[in-house]
């Protein structure tokens, strides 16, 4: 049996896509788990997206706690004799999976980018060493637990004709000694460039100081964001204070994504952002040096590209 659990629907659909493929190869059933929410419609949907069976679990616990979810899932895994367990790799899943693995004395691989079955063995791939390498690993324990990050696999197309079993269950857990006493939404105000996960950086391609708002609007689409700039914007024009200046004499940054907008890509600027995971360049000059240093680029006028990009990202998120 292949068992899949994620607290988020979209991630669950993606996992069911991959889970279906793995279950077929193993010639086993694919089971989805929904905890604490008697949502039959959701269970139906999971079946349409590839699940053979859905456990709908009623329980005495209220909010997610790894200690308690470990008890719930352990029972289900043992009962269903699951050999492969996929857990959604959000923050909850990442603390649940290893705890569950410890309980089952099982191998666990975190944040897999690929999973396949080779001669009956579960083979996983994940990036290690800050993205510098990929480790291919084989699970040797009776059960294998794998966490799956979002956007790694594609969901199947919904098949409204698919049939499956919805099994309601009540599982009571020993409550954890820990208590949740408060939950606060985190404010996503900007952060400084050196800590930023996403930086939108402005260069001489911007005509006026006011237009930097366009970059801010793009940045606003992301968490842990910051506005950066090249030397002229800060040192020469004083449109942005020095703490935004990315470059050799400015700040050295290494965000997950660096948008270089209207930046030509002088070597001093490159030296400050070279360690970014992904570099996206937007520039109207197709010969701009920045494109040599970019993973993705759009040759075009930033005043046309940015508004469309902001809309497109907004739409993609929903």
């Amino acid at each position: 049996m292949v068992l899949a659990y994620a607290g988020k629907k979209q991630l669950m659909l993606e996992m069911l896509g991959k889970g279906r493929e793995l279950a077929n190869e193993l010639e086993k059933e694919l089971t989805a788990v929904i905890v604490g929410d008697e949502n039959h419609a959701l269970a139906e949907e999971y079946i349409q997206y590839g699940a053979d069976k859905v456990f709908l679990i009623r329980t005495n616990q209220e909010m997610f706690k790894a200690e308690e979810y470990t008890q719930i899932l352990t029972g289900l895994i043992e009962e269903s004799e699951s050999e492969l367990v996929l857990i959604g790799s959000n923050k909850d899943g990442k603390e649940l999976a290893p705890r569950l693995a410890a309980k089952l004395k099982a191998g666990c691989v975190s944040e897999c980018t690929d999973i396949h079955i080779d001669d009956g063995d579960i083979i996983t791939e994940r990036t290690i060493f800050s993205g510098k390498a990929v480790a291919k690993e084989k699970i040797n324990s009776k059960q294998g637990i794998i966490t799956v990050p979002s956007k790694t696999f594609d969901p199947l197309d919904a098949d409204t004709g698919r049939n499956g079993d919805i099994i309601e269950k009540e599982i009571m857990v020993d409550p954890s000694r820990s208590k949740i006493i408060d939950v606060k939404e985190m404010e996503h105000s900007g952060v400084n460039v050196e800590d930023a996960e996403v930086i939108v950086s402005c260069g001489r391609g911007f005509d006026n100081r006011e237009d930097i708002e366009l970059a801010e609007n793009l940045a606003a689409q992301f968490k842990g964001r910051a506005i950066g700039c090249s030397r002229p914007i800060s040192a020469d024009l004083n449109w942005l204070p020095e703490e935004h200046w990315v470059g050799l004499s400015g700040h050295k940054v290494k965000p997950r994504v660096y948008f270089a907008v209207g930046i030509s890509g002088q070597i001093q600027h490159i030296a400050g952002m070279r360690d970014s995971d992904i570099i996206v360049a937007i520039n109207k000059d197709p010969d701009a040096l920045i494109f040599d240093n970019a993973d993705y680029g759009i040759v075009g006028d930033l005043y046309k590209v940015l508004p469309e990009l902001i809309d497109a990202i907004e739409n993609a998120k929903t």
Partner: protein
Amino acid sequence: MDFELTDKQKMIKNMVREFAQKEIAPVAEEIDKEEKFPHEIIKKMAPLGLLAVMVPQEYGGAGLDTISYAIVIEEISKECASTGVIASVHNSLVSWPITEFGTKAQKEKFLPILAKGEKIGAFAATEDNAGTDLGALETTAKLDGDEYVINGSKTFITSGKDAEIHIVFAITDKSAGHKGISAFIVDKEKTEGFEVGAIFEKLGIHGSVTSELIFKDMRVPKENLLGEEGDGLKIALATLDGGRLGIAAQALGIAQAALEESIEYSKNRQQFGRPISKFQAIQWKLADMATNIDAARLLLYRACHAKDQGGRFSREAAMAKLFASEAAMEAAVEGVQIHGGYGYIKEYKIERLFRDAKITEIYEGTSEAQRMVISRDILK
């Protein structure tokens, strides 16, 4: 024989490197540009023990060996040569002679203050007409009751404006020639007639704020005489032997930084479709730099070891200082060359290293003076 640093020395290197990268590197350019004495950094160095590396623990120091000291100065200088020389002077030209030649009372009074960085130290020997030739000093000190009255002026004093504890050399007995020079511990705050003269605009090490000092009937209590009357030259020479190890370490830090900057640049700078590090002309420059730096480091550690064994180490210190400073200059020159036009503009660190390197061949004994010391020793 063992060429490995000890666990402790490795840990010290890591700690100082992390400190320098975190606290010094971000402000080094500003210190240089604004010719700013790095008071903030010095304040942060004190609790880490970096201002009293070799001072005995009973006086608030770390009581460490000289190789550890060289490691400290190298790592600091790698990020900021100005801070490096300030620390070197404070440690080896001020705290060291007080430790070595001071009375118990002097040690108790001055060493903890210096260790805590409450007051910064300076070494006031050089005068307009007395550089390498310290015997030609003109500043005088005359005993008047319980106080010496000092008159004269000093020049090129590192930290001169910002330091408060000065080791001042003056003539107490002109007729005694070299034996007529004495050393004094002067606490600027506790005396009158101490004036800071001109502040020099220098080629490099802008942060060390070098100045003239002018003494006009400056009264210093008798108990601040360091050693005996007439011990001055002996104290100065012994102190400078140790000081040279500090300057060699500073030079080494500059050289190492120049090498690292050049490696980084050459791997990233593309010409003719490939990084310039693929060109043999660049590779050979880097190889020569690395070899010189390694040799300089070995000479320096050997000299530090000799000092810790006791006895004279003038020749070893002179060799280390001569070789390290010339290695620094060469690394800086070649480093700028590797950087091409970019090496000539202030945005690149190599430009500062180039300006900072030169002084290491000059102060605390020019390269020529080191050769003099070495040749005298091998020809005797």
